[in-house]
């Protein structure tokens, strides 16, 4: 499966603002255009007057200036009219904002976890209620969704331009917002057979950006929001809910591990082709001798890998920095097992250590 970071962001640009895809978008845009109109009016007025006066009253034409002016009426008018206009703007801005802030009582819930540099969106399985973690959003058309957001490292900000919604994702506190998507995407990737078609359908979904600066790959902290009709939304969650199976058949663990590798954002920092990134590559990692910043060393076996994922600060691989967040409580044992199998599958060291690739656990 393609990672969303590899998908080109589709352009949902409309005229001046992105195409509307949420219930509040029309309110925001209406006010935006009202302010635009006010701005254009005053810009034209003032530019016009300045240019007209500069020509009409140029020194060669008007050598003697008019005496010092004073006009109470004029001054009152140009203070009061703008005051009224800004009060009107403030009022509608406030009203729109209250609409954004007060969420309907019954809403779907999505937990959002922002990290350097990716997103995890946690859903509940529509049937058995188990958690489902995705790296992209799936939203039901016409139904309110509440986002409960936290960060495992620095401040991020979740921004969906088409839905006119943005909120900072702050470590140490929960920030919330809600949206009601209004325009389903035309193509549902879950109904398509091939990976290419799926990828194209995802590329056509709405853009999601991080808008609070968060370091090296801030500009790659992108993902997608796919809006589907409610029944298709449920079906998609059920499909996503089971990464260990496909079409009812169990998948090999290293395939599951590969899915987790992209979906949980490990690929943001770890490559599998030997290139060193923010973190060490996974190529030939398993079974290799690891050198740590405190001078000690160890062989990368299952226990070491698990420790590195749950407590990354304990042993820091030289010459890297301690930037990886802990996945304690984020990845369960089964998932960590799958990731380990995936690491084994990309490590030549593991094969040379002998023994067939174990599918145990």
């Amino acid at each position, binding site marked *: 499966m393609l990672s969303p970071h590899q998908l080109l962001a589709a*352009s949902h640009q409309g005229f001046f603002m992105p195409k509307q895809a949420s219930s509040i978008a029309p309110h*925001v845009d209406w006010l935006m255009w009202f302010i635009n109109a006010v701005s254009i009016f005053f810009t034209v007025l003032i530019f016009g007057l300045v240019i007209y006066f500069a020509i009409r009253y*140029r020194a060669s034409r008007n050598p003697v200036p*008019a005496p010092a002016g004073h006009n109470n009426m004029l001054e009152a008018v140009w203070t009061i009219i703008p005051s009224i206009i800004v009060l009107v703007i403030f009022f509608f*801005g406030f009203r*729109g904002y209250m609409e954004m802030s007060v969420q309907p009582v019954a809403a779907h819930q999505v937990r959002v976890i922002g990290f350097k540099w990716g997103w995890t969106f946690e859903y509940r399985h529509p049937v058995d209620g188990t958690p489902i973690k995705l790296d992209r959003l799936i939203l039901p058309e016409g139904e309110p969704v509440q986002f409960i957001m936290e960060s495992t490292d620095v401040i991020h900000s979740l921004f969906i331009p088409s839905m006119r919604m943005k909120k*900072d994702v702050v470590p140490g506190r929960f920030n919330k917002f809600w949206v009601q998507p209004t325009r389903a995407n035309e193509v549902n990737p879950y109904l398509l057979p091939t990976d290419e078609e799926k990828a194209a359908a995802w590329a056509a979904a709405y853009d999601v*950006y991080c808008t609070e600066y968060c370091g090296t790959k801030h500009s790659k902290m992108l993902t997608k929001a796919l809006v589907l009709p409610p029944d298709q939304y449920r079906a998609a969650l059920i499909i996503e809910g089971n990464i260990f199976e496909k079409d009812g058949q169990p998948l090999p663990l290293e395939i599951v591990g590969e899915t987790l590798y992209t979906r949980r954002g490990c690929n943001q920092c770890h490559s599998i082709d030997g290139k060193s*990134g923010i973190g060490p590559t996974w190529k030939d990692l398993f079974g290799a001798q690891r050198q740590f910043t405190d001078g000690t060393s160890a062989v990368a076996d299952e226990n070491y890998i698990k420790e590195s994922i749950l407590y990354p600060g304990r042993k820091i691989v030289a010459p890297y920095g301690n930037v990886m967040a802990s996945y304690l409580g984020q990845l369960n044992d089964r998932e960590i097992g799958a990731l380990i199998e995936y690491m084994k599958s990309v490590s030549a060291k593991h094969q040379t250590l002998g023994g067939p690739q174990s599918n145990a656990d």
Partner: protein
Amino acid sequence: MSTIAPDIRVPSQPSGEAPKHHYLNHTKGVLSWLLTLDHKRIGLMYMVAVLAAFLIGGIFAVLLRLELFHPDPTFNSDPTKAWDLYNHFFTLHGAVMVFMFIIPAVPAILGNFVLPIMLGAKDVAFPRLNLASFWVYVLGGLFLLYVLFGGVLYIATYDEITGTGIRLPGGFGLDTGWTFYTPYSTSAGGTQSGVIAATMGVFILGFSSILTGLNFIATIHMLRPKGMTWFRLPLFLWALYSTSLIQVLATPVLAITLLLLLAERILRIGIFDPSIGGDPVLYQHFFWFYSHPAVYIMVLPALGVISELITTFSRRHIFGYHFIAISSVAIALLGFLVWGHHMFTSGQSALTNAIFSLITFSVAIPSAVKVFNWVATLWGGSIHLRTPMIYALCFIGLFVIGGLTGLHLGTLSTDIHLHDTYFVVAHFHYVMVGSSLFAFLGGMYYWFPKMFGKMYSERWGIVGAIITYVGFNLTFFVQFIAGAQGMPRRYASYPDGYTIYHQISTVGALVVSVGLFMILFNWLHGLIKGKPAPANPWGGNTLEWQTSSPPPHDNFATTPEVGDPYDMHEWEEDKRTGAWTKVPGKAAPAHAH
């Protein structure tokens, strides 16, 4: 005596006869400059230092626009290196431009040079403090640049094979943006982080502005000559006075923030860092409590300059003097109450957001009324389109656009969409660069003859202004659209859909660079080859025009006569030489209606 002796109040220094003895040749030698207590020389030293900072900030602006010409990495084939470089570039650009250029530009260069002369004083109240503030500026500036450059150098020289690059001791660099938001700023890089050092640099720079501010306040209070009542103060001085108030009151908050950062770092007390129980949003409150008023430090002096230019070149008394004077102080004070509008999306309560939004709008009104006052001053004037006036008119345009787009951002529901996008980038560049820079350049041209006793080339002055103006709008106007379409700020790379906006913007930045170099060459040319300037080349009635160009060491040969600063009707132009002379007792023009 008064009947026989030439009236020194009415300088008749004709064009072509520069005074033999003036502040530039008062004493000689490098030390006579470096250790001078003369506010005029200190102003010029500031000019050299601040323009050097502007050049550095500008080079990095061009570099980051070049990186953004295309969504793919430009300056390094390895994307993470290219992005890291970009992140250091924009931090360097922002920090240098804000703390080392815009904040000191008008007050420290023009203010230092002009304030005592306009006031009719010999110097500022504390000349030694003034010199100290200059050297503190240099120290802080070098410190900040060292830290920031260190990071760029390291990444640029980083070698894949050895796994290191050239690392200056302590030069860890910074990639946090000029806002230094925690916890990113305190966690990134661990011990290898430049944030404490950079904040220290900013604090030292802040100290320099506190000293200048104090000095200006004391000068305006204590050194006004007889007859210079508060409501005879030129509007530029009202603006500098208000600015100084902010500098003295707001900058200490920066110091407090620095101490808290240090305390957290060294003593591990949780203040901003959530992993030890702090609150990162608290940092934003601290930061903007200083930095929002700082925005007014950048823009108020600019408004003051524009009031001078508009009235002089319209040959008409400024419209609404009292309003403009008082509103400078009002804006300065209200400016302390709006910092929360930078945090509408941070999760602060809806009520807090509403209050901040409302107060923000209340600042819009006095700003708007100032613009109307300027336009009303033009109305019926006798307008001389000299270079400084061209800048003033361009300024009005940019300030109007910058101000009106502030409405989009002050409004709660629309700000949610626009916050942290290019719309914000465009807005504050219109206000901070468009307005402050154009006012600064206009002011430089206006007082250039007074500073150096030479004239610049009027034709190239106007051409340079227009090129810069066109380039500026090309660079930043499209950014409003990019931002409304959702383009986030501080992105080293971007989705393809935004390419066209970025390309137009980059081309605009190159045009601006051409314009700015033309301005620089015009000044240098004027300095070396310019025609001698008359004492009063514009017919202004503020006191600096009542002394020779350049002024003597003590500013005035005799105490100048103080009157209404904007009653210019007694000045008459000699069309041949371009010099204006005062004809005392000349009748005011009759009412036209």
